[in-house]
């Protein structure tokens, strides 16, 4: 049965979907109307879904010649007024770093989905990993802050994609959905709510006429209102260091200092509003797992098993990876005596945890090779941690 026009925007109902497809549906529900991409495992299903679905809702899909072009195109589309997205995996994410920097510098709302696979280089195309976490923070040159969310279920792939759009529009920052390949390829039940129950945020528009508008002059929240091309504001946008008018002022130290500071501060100072975590049995926990993405699911089972064996265990799941939920980790150190970090890499977020945890011992459980952690592996290291 074909759907009526209204229903095609949000596929309200219960579905059995894979994570990539749920991500595409989340994007469309959030109002994404431009997608530029390039095929890559394990993110291809997102581009395939967008190619089929965007045209149904009046949006545009284009397959570009490479990921450099995809990233550039979504920036252009965003300035033309569309909510835009691209999706890729490690090798493509590397190519996108150049224009991710441009999106940061020009404060362009746009979404990059990275379905992480085994790396470096071509690595393990079909196997999930969490090896791009530090790249997502530091991949483009220069000082900047970024927003990245880590889904752990197919339901998350739908919901957090919407949240990515809302954060991106709010803070005028490129925002990442940082999913491991297992979550991307997972098939699970997804409940898509009716459209009126989905919270959608739109970017701030200028409230002054064109002759008074300064495109990079921030409001109190450090975010400038954004005019779209074609609205008569005649905006100049450049990747060069620019003043509040948007004009290049490349040799003025003050302009560079103020711009870079604001680009970082608009995320740092709003970190409390951005960061989200999920707590499981943490109230009286003595040993806490800190995990994100698919390892957080094995961690839930490990916590239950640990409790059964008498260890007061709990889980802090990072829904927001960047900005790093420092406060939540710091608070945790007030009452736990050890922290366990399972990650599908050889040591990335664990360093951030160590930094925030200060004196509290942190036990690291790396996982390489293309399979997720087993609950028993996490339990084993928790036992060791509880004795330390």
């Amino acid at each position, binding site marked *: 049965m074909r759907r009526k026009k209204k229903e095609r925007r949000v596929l309200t109902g219960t579905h059995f979907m894979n994570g990539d497809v749920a991500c595409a549906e989340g994007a469309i529900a959030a109002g994404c109307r431009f997608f530029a991409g390039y095929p890559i495992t394990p993110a291809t299903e997102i581009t395939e879904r967008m190619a089929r679905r965007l045209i*149904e809702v009046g949006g*545009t899909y284009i397959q570009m010649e490479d990921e450099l072009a995809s990233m550039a195109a979504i920036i*252009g*589309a965003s300035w033309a007024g*569309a909510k835009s997205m691209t999706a890729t995996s490690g090798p493509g994410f590397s190519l996108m770093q150049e224009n991710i920097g441009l999106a940061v510098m020009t404060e362009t709302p746009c979404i990059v989905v990275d379905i992480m696979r085994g790396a470096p280089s071509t690595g393990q195309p079909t196997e999930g990993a969490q090896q791009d976490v530090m790249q997502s923070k530091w991949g483009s040159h220069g000082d900047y802050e970024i927003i990245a969310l880590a889904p752990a279920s197919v339901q998350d792939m739908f919901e957090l994609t919407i949240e990515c759009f809302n954060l991106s529009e709010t803070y005028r920052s490129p925002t990442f959905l940082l999913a491991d390949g297992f979550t991307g390829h997972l098939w699970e039940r997804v409940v898509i709510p009716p459209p009126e129950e989905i919270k959608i945020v739109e970017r701030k528009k200028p409230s002054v006429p064109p002759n008074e508008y300064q495109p990079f002059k921030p409001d109190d929240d450090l975010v400038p209102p954004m005019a779209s*091309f074609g609205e008569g504001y005649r905006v100049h946008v450049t990747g060069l260091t620019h003043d509040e008018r948007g004009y290049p002022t490349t040799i003025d130290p003050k302009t560079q200092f103020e711009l870079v500071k604001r680009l970082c501060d608009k995320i740092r100072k709003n970190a409390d509003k951005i960061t989200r975590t999920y707590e499981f049995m943490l109230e009286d926990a003595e040993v806490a797992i800190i995990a994100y993405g698919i390892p957080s699911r094995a961690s839930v089972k490990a916590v239950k098993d640990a409790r059964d064996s008498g260890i007061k265990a709990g889980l802090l799941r990072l829904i927001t990876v960047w900005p790093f939920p420092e406060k939540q980790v710091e608070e945790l150190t007030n009452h736990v005596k050890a922290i366990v970090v399972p990650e599908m890499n050889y040591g990335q977020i664990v360093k951030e945890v160590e930094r925030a945890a200060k004196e509290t011992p942190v036990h690291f459980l790396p996982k390489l090779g293309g399979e997720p952690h087993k609950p028993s592996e996490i339990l084993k290291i928790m036992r060791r941690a509880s004795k330390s």
Partner: protein
Amino acid sequence: MTVKQQFNRHPLAKYLREERLPHIWCEGCGDGIILNCFVNALNDLNMDIDKLVVVSGIGCIGRIAGYIKCDSFHTTHGRPIALATGIKLANPKLTISVISGDGDLFAIGGNHFIHAARRNMDMTVICSNNFNYGMTGGQFGPTTPLNSYTTTTPYGSIEHPFNLVHLAAAAGAIYVARWTVLHAKELTMSIKKALQKSGFKFIEVISPCPEIFGRRNKLGRAVDIMELYRKISETIHGCDPAKTEITDKRIIVGEFVDIEKPTYDELLQKQFAEVQKELTRG
């Protein structure tokens, strides 16, 4: 503004961000002439400037986007066409012009150029070809003639240059022309024609770089280079682009391709209508 200031104001000043002038280009550079021809074309066409977007890349001519008083984007190196593609598709009502250099469009951005031409993406691409990377001090690029001296070809270039108009035509551009900056009237005419056509249009502009490329290759002052253009350029409209290779003896200028072909956006709109029809039927 006093009456005198009003009187003294250049009639084309309304197209420029006057507060940003003077521009950064060297004396004798051809980029100012390209800017002049571009705004003259806008003026002649009485273009709706609020619906025009100029996109440029990195290099001397890349700064042009910041001088024209319209929505404009000065992108990363090589990416103006890819970024312009996103602008055009997200708002097809906008007129897009990409103005950039030979290095930006054909070395680092070469892939985007051929694919936008292949797709017949609706945009006018103007290339200021000065045969070298001027902004970084004069290195050789994809159009540098054989045996030319640059900072990175101290013994002469051993690379065969691209023939840009041939490349554009082969990749699928629906309008292809070449002029030198000496041909200001013809260039303005070409820009006007291109802005009115739908599809991927390409105009190569041979532009002097007396300070950097000219000095190293003993081409003389800007006027000497203009005199050279006068001497060796020959207008052959409709010339086979394959036969328009630039040599030190001859620069063939003119309009080489002028055809019609459905644009990406037109095909997309057609497909959109078909899909919508199918969906409402169901």
